Structure formats: structure tokens, C-alpha cells
């Protein structure tokens, strides 16, 4: 049951990646950072899956994924903002966050091998803030990357909790151990689904014309 959801989400992610890459190379339409983000997610998901099957600790991959997600989504929002001050805010906040995380990892290398609560909170909230700034911009402008932003706000706000309690779930019995990950996989399906829907709404129509 649990596996089905995870594989569905991988499947949708693969479709997303193929469609966005197609739009990017064929139509030169899709945002380069977003395509990079999808490719990065794809890569990370599959390496995590492989590590899991090899019975190796894949938590350092989770950490890399979370940081990379912040950088790529930050750059994505940075590229679609039009106000200079907003662009600057995104870049500076990413840099400061990276600096703080670097210091934390230097001080305690072990943080890399478990769920780093501080890192999860910081990166997710930053991306949610970027997405909310984009929502604010869209109040008077036309809807651009509307469903992607909905997906980002929805998924990152909710999944952050699941990552935060990641260290706790280790100690639970088999019965409940995977509950949070089951929930996460359902959220992932919605997340990638929204991204797919955004492609259908904005990019597929242009290819038909």
C-alpha cells in the first residue's frame, strides 16, 4: 500500500520532468531553474530509493535534497520576480541560509546523517516565503506559475512537519513507523500533480498553437 503511493509519485515526477524538458528544449518556454529543480528531484528520489534498497543510510541525501531544493526554487523565484529589491532579498537570504548551514555542519558533522531540524525549518520556510512573495506579486499581475506556487506552499508547509518529526518516527513501532512517509508520499503525488497541471495549463496550450 505504502509502496504504491511512492511509486505513483515517482511516476508523476518522471512525467513532469519529461514534459518540462520537452517544453524547455523544443519551445524554449519552461523556466531553466524549474527544469533543473525537477531533474534534481528526480535524481535525488532515485538515488534515495536505491540507497534504501541497498539498506544504506540515505539521510545525507535528504539533507542534500532539502538544501538543493531551496537553492533551485530560490533561483527559480529570483528569475521570475521583476522587482530589484525582491530579487536581492531572495539572493541574500539564500546566501545567509547557506552560510549558517555551512557553519552548523562544520561545527557538527553528524548533523548530516540525521534529520536536521534547523535546516528543514529554515529552507522550507524560505521557499514558502518566496512563493508567498510571488503570490503577492500576482495579486495585480496575470497568473504566472500559479499552480506551481500553490503546490510549493501547500507541500512545503505540510511536509516540513513530516520531516521535522523524522527523527521521532525512528523510535516508533513498525505499525506507525511509515505512517508519516505514507502521508508524505500522498502529499508528493498532489505536489507533482499540481506541477503537471501547471504544465498542462500554461505550456501545453502554446505547443498546440
Amino acid at each position, binding site marked *: 500500500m505504502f509502496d504504491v503511493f511512492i511509486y505513483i509519485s515517482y511516476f508523476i515526477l518522471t512525467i513532469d520532468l519529461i514534459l518540462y524538458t520537452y517544453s524547455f528544449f523544443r519551445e524554449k518556454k519552461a523556466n531553466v531553474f524549474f527544469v533543473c529543480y525537477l531533474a534534481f528531484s528526480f535524481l535525488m528520489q532515485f538515488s534515495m530509493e536505491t540507497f534504501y534498497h541497498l539498506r544504506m543510510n540515505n539521510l545525507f541525501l535528504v539533507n542534500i535534497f532539502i538544501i538543493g531544493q531551496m537553492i533551485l526554487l530560490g533561483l527559480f523565484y529570483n528569475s521570475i520576480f521583476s522587482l530589484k529589491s525582491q530579487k536581492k532579498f531572495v539572493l541574500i537570504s539564500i546566501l545567509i541560509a547557506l552560510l549558517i548551514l555551512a557553519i552548523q555542519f562544520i561545527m557538527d558533522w553528524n548533523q548530516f546523517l540525521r534529520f536536521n531540524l534547523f535546516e528543514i525549518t529554515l529552507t522550507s520556510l524560505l521557499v514558502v516565503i518566496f512563493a*508567498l512573495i510571488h*503570490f503577492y506579486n*500576482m*495579486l*495585480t499581475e496575470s497568473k504566472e506559475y500559479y499552480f506551481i506556487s*500553490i503546490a510549493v*506552499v*501547500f507541500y512545503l*508547509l*505540510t511536509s*516540513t*512537519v*513530516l520531516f521535522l*518529526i523524522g527523527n*521521532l*518516527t525512528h*523510535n*516508533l*513501532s513498525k*505499525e*506507525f513507523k511509515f*505512517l*508519516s512517509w505514507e*502521508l508524505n508520499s500522498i502529499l508528493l503525488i498532489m505536489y507533482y500533480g499540481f506541477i503537471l497541471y501547471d504544465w498542462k495549463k500554461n505550456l501545453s496550450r502554446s505547443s498546440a498553437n
Partner: protein
Amino acid sequence: MSVHALPEKEIVAIILYISMFLMILAVVLIIFFYFSRQKIIQKELEKVDLILRYQKEQLHAIIFTQEEERKRIAQDLHDDISSKLNIVSLNSHLLTAPNLTETETAEITENIINLTTKALENSRKIAHNLLPPVFEKFGLSAGIEELCEEFESSKSVKTHYKNEIDFDEKDIDRHLHVFRILQELMSNSIRHGKATEIWISFANINGVNICDYKDNGVGFDSSNAENQKGLGMKNIDSRISFLEGTIEIASEINNGIVVNFTF
């Protein structure tokens, strides 16, 4: 670890509730955004609508005044020129009649000469009313002076005109608007205000040209918006907006009217 102290079910409930809470928070945020956006767009549309309606009203006013002006010119031409030329043509036909005595011929020719002189004079007057030659040749100040003289001689009103600005001839298109505004104000003062004295002055304050206009007529209640919606006022308003100036109209019943505008 203290985690072991908590029953497992409790932890699961906490997990579920917190994720539920944030899920709802995210949905509420998105819904909030959605409705705010709709509201803002609706307000924007209303604003555009208002501007469009105002523009339409102005367009109506322009077309209406154009028609009025045409009617007036047609009437002037018909009453003052066509009728006279008709009689001239009749008289000329009379001249061709056989067996005319010399006195009759002289009478008819005198008639013709008189009528053509009058027709000429009238046509000059009509042309003058449309665009005063003095204004065209000597500029705004001379045009206003002549306007004042005309009003004094024909409408028994005393005018006081004072000018401190040296008008640039290149701006004659703008000055025509000023001239028309004053013309409209003066005829309003006479027609509606029954004024007997009118003051007009031009001054340049801090690089802005200001015109002060005042009369001693019956005035109107300027706080009543109904009084500011006449066609003449709309006309003045559009001219002021052409000049990118501002206008202030103040009036009280039995206290005349004071108008200040910049151009």
C-alpha cells in the same frame, strides 16, 4: 529518551494533527490570495469603467457643442447673408426688366449696393465671431482687450482688464483655449449672472500663468454640484485639461463668481 514516555498513539495523533493544521493553513492562505486577487481586479475594472464613462461624457459634450456651433453658424449665414443676397439677386433681376426709368434704376442699384455692403459686414462679423482677427494677429492680450471692448459697447457692462504676462506667440493654440474660456465665462456672467462689472487679470506666479476672473453678478451656490455640470462648464473643464492646468470656481448667491485657473 522522553519519547518513550509518551504512548505511541499520542505521538501519531500529534503528527496527524500538526500536519492537518499546516495543511489547512496552506489552503487558507491560497484561498485568501484567490479572493483578494478577485477583489482587486474587480476594483480595477470599476475604475477603468469610470474613466471610460467620463471620457464618453466628454465626447458627448464635444459633439453636442459642435452641433450647436454649426447650428449657430448656419443660422447666422441664413439670417444675415443668404436673405440679403436673395434680395440682391431679386433686385438684379429687376434691373434687367425693360422700360426702366433712370430714377428706378438708380434706386435699385442703391438698394443693391446697400444690401451687399450689409452682407459683407455681416459675413465679416460672423468670421470675427468664429476667430477674432485681432487675436490671431496680435495675440491673446489684444484679443482679450478687444473682447472686453465688445462686451462694454454692446452689453453695457464695465470691464477691468490687467495683464502682467508677456505671452509667447508660439503658444497661440494654447492661448485660444484661454480666450475661449474667458469668452464663455463672460457670456455666462452676462447671460446667467446679470453682472454689471467684470474683472480679468493675468499674472505669472513662480513660473505658473494664472488667470483671475471675477464678476458682481447674482452668483450661484457652488457647493451644489448640480450647478457645475452645465455644458459650458464641461467645455471649460476639457479646455483646462487640454492646458494641463487647474481651475477653482467659487461663488455665493448674490456675491458674484470668482474663478482662478492656471495654464
